[in-house]
Each structure stands twice: as structure tokens, then as C-alpha cells.
């Protein structure tokens, strides 16, 4: 199976008044056909910006992709014109977002918003598009589809709206679905239903999913491959089972430790000490060094490279560099 999406050394920077924020700084990742890849990390680590860079939706003029390659289905996306990119967006690459409540236009009906991409990309007639939209509403598990198509977003619950967002996303048969924290704003029972729905469509159509989340429970349930990001860089990646069983990077270990375990009551949940560094004040170092229990001198002055430690996992940490060196 080849790579559907290959991101090489992506750099997306934002110019602010205080200086340049390197939101995504040299990220590389691959998504194979039919694979679910999860990007995990704290808020502000650059995971959403990575996704927005793929979509070509980074908010200009402050934000800009300044370097790297984004190859989708054998085609480099970055040099594409706005028009060419637009024909891929919503068609071959679809996206769903974190807040279903605010992600749909309040003054247009569900039906109008669902038919738009069908008319735009699949050149359907208005009537055919509406019939297809009603069919899709049924497919995402909402009854009274006709009536829902004529309602407005404020008349539906958050869970239903996220189902509608999924229906819109899959309507043109995308090869890649990017889901940016699709369950974060929903309550737990609804979360499970939404994830089931994503899995179901993935199984039916063999599409790939790039799932962005900070919820390790979601990762465990969905991912084939996991990418851990910290401060705009990939610090560890690997197969999901391996990563959960043998986390290498102290940050990944911390993340896994800070996850509550069912049936185990702890007085205090572990949390990684310290805070995410200010992106404006980063200098050459391991960006995690001042929160790391294993911090060494080299961590403060030199940046570790992402390297294979086993065949299926990579980590960017001096602890493992030394292991390699001293053998």
C-alpha cells in the first residue's frame, strides 16, 4: 500500500507582533491508504495547524506555509493554485471540526449546506443533490431525514450536527478524512457513537483518516499509527500497540501516565510538571527539557533528531541517542 498523504518537513509559521511563531516546524508524516493516523499533543502543539496546512486553509496573511512538501495521492499540494486546491478540498480531502455547533452556517438549512459540495464537485443537479443529502442523513443514523434537511442548525443537538458534518465530509467520497478533535465538544456517550460512525464509513470506503486529538482514549480506539507532537515538532511516532505498550519519549510517557484508568481510583491524577514553552522564546534545545525528569546537559543546548529506535517506532530524544552511541 502506498502513501496517500506524505508530508515532508512541513513548516508553517505565523508572523505576530512579538515575532515569528513556528507553529509547525519541520513535521513529516505519512498516511497510508485505509490507515488511521492520529496526531496527539497538548493544545497549541501545532496539530490543528498541520491539518489546516494540508487543507490550504491556514489563516493568511499572518500564517504561511514557509517550507516543506505536502504530497497527496502523488500530487504536490503546495504549488497548486487556489482553484486547483479548491477542487480537491471537500472532494478528495474532507474535514470535520471540533465544534459542530458553530461549524454550520446558522442562516442556511442543513439541506442547503449539504447539497453545496455535491453540486460543486459532483456536478449534481439541485434535485439529485437534495435526494442524495437526504440519503446521507439517513446513513449517518438520523431519522426523519426529510424534516432534518429543512431544519436549521440551531434546531439540532451537537451530536446530530457532528453527524451532519460527517455526512457532508463523506458526501463526495473523499480519499482522506481529516478529523480535528471531532469528539472533544461532545459528551461521552455521543463520542462513542461518532467514532463508531467514522470507523463504519472507513470500513465501507477504504478511506484514510487523519485524526487529531488530545484524548488518548480516542487514540487507543481508532488509531493504527500514532504521531506525538510537542511544540510544533514530532517527538515520537509508532504503531499504536507498540506506542501504548512501550512509550519511549518522556513526554509520551507523561501523557500516558496522566490518563485516568477505569476502576482505579487515584487521589491525584498525574500531570506533567511545568507548562508548554512560549513558542517565541524557543532556542536550540529539546523543547521538552525543562519539564523532563531525565533532562541532561545536551538537552538544553541541542535539538534531538527523530530517529528509528525499532523498526516501527521513531523518537526524538537524547536518551535514545546515547543508547545508540554507547551501544
Amino acid at each position, binding site marked *: 500500500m502506498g502513501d496517500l498523504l506524505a508530508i515532508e518537513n512541513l513548516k508553517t509559521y505565523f508572523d505576530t507582533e512579538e515575532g515569528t511563531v513556528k507553529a509547525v516546524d519541520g513535521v513529516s508524516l505519512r498516511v497510508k491508504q485505509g490507515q488511521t493516523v492520529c496526531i496527539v499533543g497538548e493544545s497549541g502543539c501545532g496539530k490543528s495547524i498541520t491539518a489546516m496546512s494540508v*487543507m490550504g486553509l491556514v489563516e493568511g496573511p499572518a500564517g504561511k506555509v514557509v517550507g516543506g512538501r505536502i504530497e497527496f495521492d502523488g500530487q504536490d499540494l503546495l504549488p497548486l493554485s487556489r482553484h486547483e486546491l*479548491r477542487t480537491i478540498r471537500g472532494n478528495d480531502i*474532507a474535514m470535520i471540526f471540533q465544534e459542530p455547533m458553530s*461549524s*454550520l452556517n446558522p*442562516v442556511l438549512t442543513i439541506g442547503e449546506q449539504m447539497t*453545496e459540495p455535491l453540486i460543486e*464537485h459532483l456536478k449534481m443537479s439541485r434535485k439529485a443533490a437534495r435526494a442524495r443529502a437526504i440519503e446521507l442523513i439517513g446513513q449517518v443514523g438520523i431519522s426523519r431525514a426529510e424534516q432534518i434537511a429543512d431544519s436549521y442548525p440551531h434546531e439540532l443537538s451537537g451530536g446530530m450536527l457532528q453527524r451532519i458534518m460527517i455526512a457532508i465530509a463523506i458526501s463526495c467520497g473523499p480519499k482522506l478524512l481529516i478529523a480535528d478533535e471531532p469528539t472533544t465538544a461532545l459528551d461521552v456517550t455521543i463520542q462513542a457513537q461518532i467514532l463508531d460512525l467514522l470507523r463504519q464509513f472507513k470500513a465501507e470506503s477504504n478511506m484514510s483518516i487523519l485524526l487529531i486529538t488530545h484524548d488518548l482514549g480516542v487514540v487507543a480506539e481508532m488509531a493504527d499509527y500514532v504521531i506525538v507532537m510537542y511544540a510544533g515538532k514530532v517527538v515520537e511516532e509508532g504503531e499504536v500497540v507498540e506506542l501504548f505498550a512501550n512509550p519511549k519519549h518522556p513526554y509520551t510517557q507523561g501523557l500516558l501516565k496522566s490518563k485516568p484508568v477505569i476502576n482505579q481510583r487515584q487521589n491525584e491524577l498525574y500531570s506533567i510538571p511545568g507548562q508548554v514553552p512560549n513558542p517565541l522564546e524557543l532556542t536550540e534545545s529539546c523543547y521538552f527539557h525543562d519539564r523532563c525528569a531525565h533532562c541532561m546537559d545536551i538537552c538544553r543546548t541541542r535539538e534531538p533528531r527523530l530517529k528509528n529506535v525499532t523498526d516501527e517506532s521513531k523518537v526524538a530524544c537524547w536518551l535514545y541517542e546515547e543508547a545508540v552511541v554507547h551501544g
Partner: protein
Amino acid sequence: MSTYLAKRLVYMVIILFAASLLIFCLYALTPGDFISGNIKLTPERKAELREIYGLNKPVLERYAVWMKNAFHGDLGFSLSQQKPVLTLFNQYIWNSFLLAVVSTFFTWLIAVIIGVIAAYKQYSWFDTLVMVAIFAAMSLPSFFIGLFLIKILAVDWKWLPPGGMLTTGSNATGLAYVKEVVHHMTLPVIVMTLLGVGSLTRYFRSNMIDVIKQDYIRTARAKGMKERKVLFTHALRNALLPAITLVGFELPALFGGSLIIEQIFNWPGIGQLYMQSFSLRDYPLLMGFTMLIAVLTVIGTLISDILYRVADPRVRL
């Protein structure tokens, strides 16, 4: 919806009743009246005239008489013009309306288009240029722009007539009449549009900037919609919603005339008539005109509420 409308209509009647009483008392309590300004009259003649016009009666009694007549569709007789108030309104208001409706149309059209583009290209050179131009247009007083344009366009270049609604002594009819009026109204319309367009453009620009940042605009883009469609179908409809409130205020403005512009361009509108009547204390005309504006204001707010219901599905009445 219908219970809401019924309730609103009852409120409207109460508000208008209160407004009429307040307005009548204010005019009546202002020192002096139509008679006292005329120095040629003897005190005896003045008393006689006050008796004839009913100006010597108590305020509340005069109000009751006015109200009774108003209910019968009679707004009285203008003291200075010696014509029924309604006839005068009919003669002057439509002139003001013509200016207002054309300039309002251009003001909104230009403001929406420029506001949307400026918001879309926020901080670009176009946006900066627009903002500077808007501040310039807003800071210049209307009499200055008016007189300046008369000097340039009418006096120096002789492109447009400096004032009036028709050429003096003209008795054009049909299409020639229309052409003449259009020719005469161009200058006042330019000035009125120039004065109004600034604040409205800023309003649409800031609304649009807020809307463009919303999640649903990102969704529309993620669906691969054309940028034109994102802006005009998804964004503009939301950005126009708060402007519906302004529609309510535009209604009285359409009929209210413009004191300064009509004065500068010698336009035979209701604004000029109102100013004259004010200095002469022509109560029936003042009262009738102010009440007309009050009625239009109340109707305007009702219309804007109903429009909200039509335009925004989240609003329930």
C-alpha cells in the same frame, strides 16, 4: 407570530399617544406663538387672531381638539402657508423622498460592496485606502462638501446645476421633465451618499470581519466552495443581520428630509418647509410633521423586527 403582532400594535398605539401628548406640550410650552412674532399687529388684533386660531385655550383642550381632528384624518391648516397641512406634505415630502431614496440606495450598495472587499482584504493597501477615504468623508462637514462641489462641478465646470429641482422658468413635461430632475438631483445625491457611506462602510466592514472569522466560514471553505460563494452566500447573509436594525431607522429618514442639504441645494423638500415653520411657530405643520416621523419610526422598528424573523431562523417572535 400573530399574538406578537397584536401585542406590538397595542404598544404602538400607546407609544404614539404618549408621543403626541409630549410633542404637543413641548411645542405649546415653547415661549411665543405664531401671532406674537408679527410686530405689525396691535395687541387687540393679536387677541382677536388668537381667539380665531384657538391659541388662547388651555393646552390640554387644544390637544384634545387636535387629536379629535387627527383621528378624522385632518391634520389642520398651516398658519403661515394658509393651506391644509396634508396638502403641503404631499407637495414637499415626495421631493425629499426622491433624494433620500436614491442616495440611500447608493449608500447601501457602495457600503456593502466596499465593506465586504475591505474586510476580505483586511490591512491590505485597498483596505487602508478605504479607511482613510472614509475618515476624510466623515470628517468633512456637509455644508463644506456641498458648497465645494457646487463651486467645482456647477460653477467652474458647469456640469451640473447648482441648486433647485427644475431650471427656473422650465415647463418641461414627460421624459424631458424626468431628465431635468435627474440632472438637478445628481449633486445633492452625491453629497448625501458621500456623507452617509462612511459610517455604513465601517459598519459592514467590521461585521464582515467578525463573520469571516467564524467556524462556519472555515467549513464552507473546507467544503471547497468558491471564494465568491463563501463571501456572498455564507458570510454576507450573516453580516447583514445586524444591519436590519438600521433598516428601521431608515424609514423615517426617507421621509424626514434633510435640513442642511435641502438648504444648500435649494431643494423644495420637507426639511426646508419644517425649518421655516419652526421659526414661525406654525404649530399645525410642526405637529403634523413630527407625528408623521413618530409614526414612521414606530412602523420602522416593527418592520425591522419582522425582517429579523424572516432573515434569521433563530429569531422567534
